[in-house]
């Protein structure tokens, strides 16, 4: 593949070349917060909980 001269070709990101799709900026229902949090391996006060993200202070 590296032996090919592809300088004149445009890269394909989408096979049918569709353009950006935007929806109206309107509020619509989304997944229930409690249901989503219930799937997490660990949660605290309605938020995803993870181990510490910063190292020890020097």
């Amino acid at each position: 593949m590296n032996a090919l001269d592809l300088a004149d070709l445009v890269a394909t990101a989408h096979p049918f070349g569709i353009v950006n799709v935007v929806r109206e900026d309107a509020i619509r229902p989304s997944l229930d917060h409690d249901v989503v949090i219930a799937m997490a391996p660990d949660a605290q006060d309605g938020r995803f909980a993870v181990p510490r993200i910063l190292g020890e202070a020097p």
Partner: protein
Amino acid sequence: MKSAAEIARDVQSGASSAASELKTALTQIHARNEELNVFLYVDEEGAMRSAAAVDERVGRGEDAGPLAGVPVALKDNLCEVGIPTTCASKILKGWRPPYSATVIDRLLAAGAVPVGKTNLDEFAMGSSTENSAFGPTLNPLDTSRVPGGSSGGSAAAVAADMTPVSLGSDTGGSIRQPAAFCGLVGMKPSYGLVSRYGLIAFASSLDQIGPFAANVMDAALVLEVIAGHDPLDSTSLAEPAPSLASHVNDGVAGKRIGLVRELIDGADEDVVTSVERAAEAMKEAGATIVELSVPEFRLGLSAYYLIAPAEASSNLARFDGVRYGLRVDGDDVTAMMEATRTAGFGDEVKRRIMLGTYALSAGYFDAYYGQALKVRTLTIDAFDRAYQQVDLILGATTPSVAFTFGSKTSDPMAMYLSDVFTIPSNLSGEPAISVPFGTGEGGLPVGVQLLGPGRSEGLLFAGARVLEIADGRP
């Protein structure tokens, strides 16, 4: 076994009921699932509720839908609300999605009865179902052989008469290759024809959901139900679902069909013979056969194994032990994510994440991923030129009939090569169908492949039907 079309007709007329058709399916699943490892989860309660709802609609004199009472198996990378969805990976073990894929909602609305989730290569990465974290699925036609992959469970469900139809997903051949290995019809639709909402992403610009069936008409009926625009998938084509079942018996008289050398060369002799006989059958049905060479198809495999892993490495970053699925504890968040992903992903998934991350890394992007995207353009241009000369392309689906367990697991390149004939259509986003035609080594089925330009599904079904009749399945 009754076809999906026969079941729907009998359920709607009252000659049968959705409940009794479900019972037939569950009896067969109970009889063979332990041996074949087809289903990772059987949702008996949910299926009984869906079947009862269909029977109530019929009882009220309503139209229960084109798939009334038809049991359907679903590849386990399709989210179904409240039902365990694993992608055959330990990293999602026990997870129950909070929403359903659009295709499942559409199946239910059409009266179909989803019965459970089928085995696959982990995250759809593989060609034999040997990469499942829950053990391989056996080919119902010869249990010493693989059913193909990655949608091996969905193919085996139909081949073992558990359900008349099923859904799979096809990123590089994952519907067509198992269809060929199990003697079934399998179609990868045009990219965007079927909504990917609720399909757990492997390579988003290549993935498409499609049907498996024992015959062409059933495949067309299922695709007609699941196709059509979906606002929840921004890559979904903004057009209504095409009429497909009405085109199945259109024939191919007057059509030009290209026999492409690159989709035959390198295949075993039994496969080549089937493709040549299929070309003869097309000719007898009134088509003209044109021999073609499309050398660009040979580049497909290299481009695919850069593009697909690159997209996968990005898509699979979400499995990090924070929001869902497995978590393995660690002292800090980095250690936790590393431990989770090390324990949760299998070897092939790790291999592709590493390949993809490398192809996307600074300094290598242009040489690998960028170059592959341009080769994709080259492939699309080559298809366009071919379709100026012919209406459809004919070739092999796979280089061989179903291979034996373990014969390719130690050599990833040999496994990747089993997708060499199916990958070009994923790169171009165009539809292709595999249909059984003749038998090969060990009496096993051979699949031949028909490829067409974007949105030519109706013509592909018509061509596949011609081959089905010529192969003695009227």
